[in-house]
């Protein structure tokens, strides 16, 4: 079991949309390995995601309508900011992120050596096999991030990360509504934040279907590229 240094309170954030079948197991797994507070953000699911998360022992934020992943996660950042948490770790609610590896993304944050630690499925022992379009997309964003920010990343679309108080406060005000991961690199670059990648394990989904369709994948590429470039020239008040 990880025990955090006295001063830093850690919140594990799990955004979930239609994950009634997976969310309970994810919450239980996190509770088994870590003593941290757990917050599930239910992004307006029509199913029993909220009840399942509560039954497993998580605190739940119920959004009255579906905001998209970025808007949901931002709600958790607002919660963490207002409740004085010093670090937030975020993992998916569908079981793709190995809950045990929360320790790996949190370590650099708790040690104070980084503002953000992003879990990469391509570092270390990897068993990840993606489809060809997905690998191409990841390669494209890798180049984009590297070119515009200088961060050397292997897994730019990873939603498995931990951030410190400074980024919690910034993201509370500025966080992209959908597909936030790639954009976050520009925001971090603008803040001159220290970002590191750590190896994590990612699995296939446990239950249900992923939300990615070919059309959405195209939209994803175009939207992310555009907002990425806009964020380079935008002002943050």
């Amino acid at each position, binding site marked *: 079991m990880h025990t955090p240094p006295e001063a830093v309170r850690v919140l594990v954030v799990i955004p979930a949309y239609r994950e009634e079948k997976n969310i309970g197991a994810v919450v239980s797994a996190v509770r088994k390995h870590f003593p941290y507070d757990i917050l599930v*953000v239910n992004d*307006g699911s029509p199913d029993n995601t909220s009840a399942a998360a509560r039954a497993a022992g998580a*605190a*739940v*934020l*119920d*959004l*009255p*309508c579906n*905001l998209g992943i970025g*808007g949901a996660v*931002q*709600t958790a950042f*607002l*919660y963490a900011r*207002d*409740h*004085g948490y010093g670090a937030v770790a975020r993992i998916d609610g569908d079981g793709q992120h190995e809950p045990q590896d929360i320790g790996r993304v949190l370590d650099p944050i708790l040690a104070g050596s980084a503002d953000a630690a992003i879990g990469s499925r391509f570092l270390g022992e990897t068993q990840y096999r993606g489809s060809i379009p997905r690998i191409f997309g990841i390669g494209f964003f890798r180049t984009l991030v590297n070119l515009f920010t200088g961060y050397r990343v292997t897994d730019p679309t990873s939603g498995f990360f931990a951030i410190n108080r400074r980024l919690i406060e910034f993201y509370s005000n500025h966080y992209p*509504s959908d597909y936030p991961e790639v954009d976050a690199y520009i925001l971090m670059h603008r803040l001159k934040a220290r970002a590191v990648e750590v190896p994590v394990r990612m699995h296939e989904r446990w239950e249900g279907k992923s939300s990615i369709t070919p059309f959405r994948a195209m939209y994803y590429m175009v939207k992310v590229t555009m907002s990425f470039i806009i964020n380079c020239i935008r002002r943050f008040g």
Partner: protein
Amino acid sequence: MSRVTLVSICASAGLLVYILEMVRRRRLREEYSILWLFGSVVILVLSLKQDWLISLARAVGIAYPPSFLFLVGILFILLILINFSIAISRLHQMNKKMAQEIALMKRAEEEKNEAGQEPETRSVRSPS
């Protein structure tokens, strides 16, 4: 007076009256009516004042003057649509903030109830 001018006079006058009526009945808010009103007035004036239309069309190199009316109409429609996109983006942002605030308030309420039941209490600061 050519037939096309007559049509555009009737259409723009009709539009003007319709918009004014909608604003009067509070079915359309003033801020969203301004571009519509301005657009219909411009087209109405250009339809009534033939010689203005002809010299304006000539100035931008359009041989058939009524085409200039279409151009003005299309430009206004473009402007109005861009304005809609901006308005929708603003509403989107407001909607997001409200949904987030509601979720946080519901949770704060739950925490208050939980704290009431358990001896151990936790302070809940309201979102700033």
